[in-house]
């Protein structure tokens, strides 16, 4: 039991360092920084490179790695995040995701995409108290963390720039008026955060004994959860959140096994958020002074689409393309269509209700698995399984999300992210092997299996989806849901039950996500949980933001650009993700409200 505690403290140590970085950047820039995740992987790989490849001693490599991470952080902030944070925090958040993609792939190109054995630079089990065993490495790690945290808290309390950081975190405008160099403060925070991320990465490698370029995302996620747990923006909260999460997680894994790891992490997070909506040390104002969710919505007017565009698009998309295209183009087309369905359905949650849910992979997975299982085992025809998949996804997602609708602002995004991850992890626990031989759709005795067949099915579903979304937007219900996203307090005062309409919007989006999942499953004929990753959730979010978060047809444009674009870049496999990331950054930079929305 005591060993578990030690393991928990060491785990918590890493989370705490990462969480402090995330919280620091969130505090001064109001941006959730996904790029921070990449530094965990980078820190480990750099250390491996210096120690193993270049033969440097560990103590020389350590400062080098920190400086390198800090410099990369500075470059990212000046080039990408700061210019965007001015427009729209959401756009900046997305761009940090793009940066994370670029960093991860650059790292894999440079270091190779395999995990490396990390040399044992310090003994790991040479000491003991009673029968509790630990090593110099553990003592050193905890010592460094303690030192770093003490220095940082002294700096924040007494240092000139430290005071500037605190002032900027509380009120950026006022800080600027008082002559605090906000740009410098933000750069500095980013640099500190990046170095801390690198340090956490080194610790992971020391602790696990393996340096893995792809290790960033999982650790990053947990560090992010730790920061949320403590209350985003609160540094003490981040440290407490890190250790609490590390220790609880270790005991959870001890009790339920390692495969339940992610479920444990996010169930802890959801429980804390439901009880304390602002995290352990965070405070939620009694009446939000400004509509929190509204800050997600870009203020711009949609470009007016002439009426003739619709029939033309219908003819081109539904008749011309399937007639003239080859199978390769058509199968890309089916992907575009399915993501357009999921994205269009998602706009009612993300755009109208103002809830930027980050876990749509969850309901997509439910739809896919439901449809696969009932067609395989109960021999339900595809045409019946499709709506059942949507309904099941909506029902399960609604039940799981029922407690979270009182959670506000960024926290609700994180809670939905947690729900998505928990759903997929739970499916992995129940059905570990994946499902194969999922039947193709049939009409009478005709089996539909060609890319063209699927294209027509997907196109039909997309047209129906857009019709439904159009009807909802034009109705009284549509306006009411939009009012929830625009200003919750005012909506309540007008007699709108805010929580219920958020739940309804989420259920509608989950329904269409479930349809999309079902379509994917019958097209692939094989599914396992690796398909329904965090990347899938973020892809959905990116698609709607790119098209205009409030425009269902924008999701079609977003899907064409993102899915089609990714496919078009397939000839350059390694550069693909990097170019994709760059395109994303540029699109967000010049059209922060979406491609079909004029800037205002």
């Amino acid at each position, binding site marked *: 039991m005591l060993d578990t505690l030690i393991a928990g403290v060491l785990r918590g140590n890493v989370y705490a360092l990462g969480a402090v970085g995330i919280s620091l950047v969130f505090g001064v820039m109001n941006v959730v920084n996904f790029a921070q995740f990449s530094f965990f992987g980078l820190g480990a790989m750099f250390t491996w490179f210096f120690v193993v490849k270049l033969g440097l001693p560990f103590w020389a490599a350590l400062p080098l790695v920190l400086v390198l991470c800090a410099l990369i952080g500075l470059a990212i902030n000046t080039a990408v995040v700061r210019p965007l944070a001015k427009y729209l925090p959401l756009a900046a958040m997305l761009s940090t995701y793009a940066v994370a993609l670029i960093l991860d792939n650059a790292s894999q190109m440079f270091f190779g995409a395999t995990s490396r054995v990390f040399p044992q630079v310090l003994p790991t089990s040479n000491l003991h108290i009673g029968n509790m065993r630990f090593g110099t490495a553990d003592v050193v790690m905890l010592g460094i963390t303690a030192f770093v945290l003490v220095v940082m808290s002294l700096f924040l309390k007494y240092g000139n720039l430290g005071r500037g950081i605190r002032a900027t975190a509380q009120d950026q405008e006022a800080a600027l008026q008082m002559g605090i160099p906000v740009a410098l403060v933000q750069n500095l925070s980013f640099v500190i955060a990046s170095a801390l991320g690198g340090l956490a990465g080194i610790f992971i490698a020391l602790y696990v004994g393996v340096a893995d370029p792809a290790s960033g995302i999982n650790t990053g996620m947990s560090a992010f959860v730790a920061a949320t747990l403590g209350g985003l923006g609160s540094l003490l909260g981040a440290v407490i959140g890190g250790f609490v999460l590390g220790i609880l997680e270790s005991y959870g894994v001890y009790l339920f096994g390692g495969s339940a790891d992610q479920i444990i992490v996010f169930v802890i997070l959801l429980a804390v958020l439901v009880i304390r909506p602002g995290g352990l040390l965070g405070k939620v104002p*009694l*009446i939000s002074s400004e*509509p929190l969710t*509204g800050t997600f*919505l870009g*203020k711009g*007017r949609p470009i007016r689409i002439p009426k003739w565009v619709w029939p033309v698009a219908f003819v081109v998309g539904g008749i011309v393309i399937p007639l003239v295209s080859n199978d390769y183009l058509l199968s890309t087309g089916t992907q575009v269509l399915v993501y357009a369905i999921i994205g269009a359905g998602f706009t009612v949650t993300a755009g109208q209700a103002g809830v930027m849910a980050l876990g749509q992979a969850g309901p997509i997975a439910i739809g896919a698995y439901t449809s696969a299982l009932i067609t395989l085992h109960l021999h339900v025809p595809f045409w019946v399984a499709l709506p059942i998949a949507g309904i099941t996804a909506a029902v399960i997602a609604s039940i799981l999300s029922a407690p979270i609708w009182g959670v506000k602002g960024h926290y609700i995004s994180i809670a939905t992210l947690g729900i998505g991850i928990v759903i997929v992890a739970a499916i992995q626990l129940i059905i570990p092997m994946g499902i194969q031989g999922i039947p193709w759709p049939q009409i009478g005795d005709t089996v539909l299996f060609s890319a063209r067949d699927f294209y027509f099915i997907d196109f039909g579903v997309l047209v129906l989806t857009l019709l*439904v979304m159009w*009807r*909802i937007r034009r*109705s*009284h*219900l*549509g*306006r*009411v849901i*939009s*009012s929830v*996203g*625009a*200003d919750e*307090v*005012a*909506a*309540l*005062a*007008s*007699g*709108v*039950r*805010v929580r*219920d*309409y958020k*739940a*309804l919007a989420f259920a*509608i989006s989950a329904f269409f996500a479930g349809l999309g999942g079902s379509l994917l499953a019958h097209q692939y004929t094989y599914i396992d949980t690796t398909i329904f990753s965090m990347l899938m959730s973020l892809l959905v979010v990116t698609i709607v933001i790119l098209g205009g978060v*409030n425009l269902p047809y924008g999701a079609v444009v977003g899907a064409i650009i993102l899915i089609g674009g990714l496919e078009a870049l397939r000839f350059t496999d390694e550069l693909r993700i990097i170019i994709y990331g760059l395109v994303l950054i540029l699109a967000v930079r010049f059209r922060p409200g979406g491609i079909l929305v004029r800037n*205002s």
Partner: protein
Amino acid sequence: MSKPLLEVTDLERHFEGLKAVDGITFQVAPHEVVSIIGPNGSGKTTTLNLVTGTIRANGGTIVLDGRDIGHADTARIAEDGVARTFQNGRVFPTLSVADNIEVGIHSTLHASRPFRSLSHLFLLRWIPLLAELFVAIFGTPGARRERQQIDATVQEEIARFEARLGSRRDDPAYTLSYANRRRTEIARALALKPKLLVLDEPTAGMNQSETAEVLDQLLQLKADGQTILLVEHKLDLVMTVSDRVIVMDGGRIIAQGKPDAVRQNPAVIEAYLGRRRGLGGEDLR
């Protein structure tokens, strides 16, 4: 005085030890215009927030038209016929002026919201939600008739501010001037056809001519028999429009009565001008 529409008894609310509202009791009769005045921090806005359910009271009762609304949620209170505006103005920035007003009508609708009597019940609330979704997608004859009523009410409310909002009907609210946002907010509140209209500083940030315009509109509402609970700093407006004035200081009611009586009340003068000057004036006599 006839039976009061709003009856507030021993209302209390404290924030971490500070007694913002400290046991106040007052009534508002039907068709009456009552204003609450007092120095900054005296608890006026907190009182409005308590009456409209935006925040919960720590003690006391609030009775509207014979029903205890002290523990009801904000949406329920709106359904019971209380509409409000906010101190700094809260419109739905991304919605058009017309859509802003349409949201105000929400709690008066029936055909677009079938089974709405279940909407406050655990789990059963999904029945009205899904029914509303069904009506939105497929439509019903009743909902189509109600749509015409909605459009008529929106038109009626915009007509109230025709010169200002008429040409901006379809503009998103974030593009409006501050004063026009306030007008949109008042129109949205009136669209609810409230028994009690609660206005929190409707003329804040407006210039003299705009304030005069609001005064005219308030007098018009008063002539129509609208019951109003008003918080306002501009005393000229308060004294002109109010039937009764309540003066708050330090979370308590220090005086209430007809505008002229309150104006002469020494406690009020003291609260507004300070003890020494208030008493000093008397010493000189």
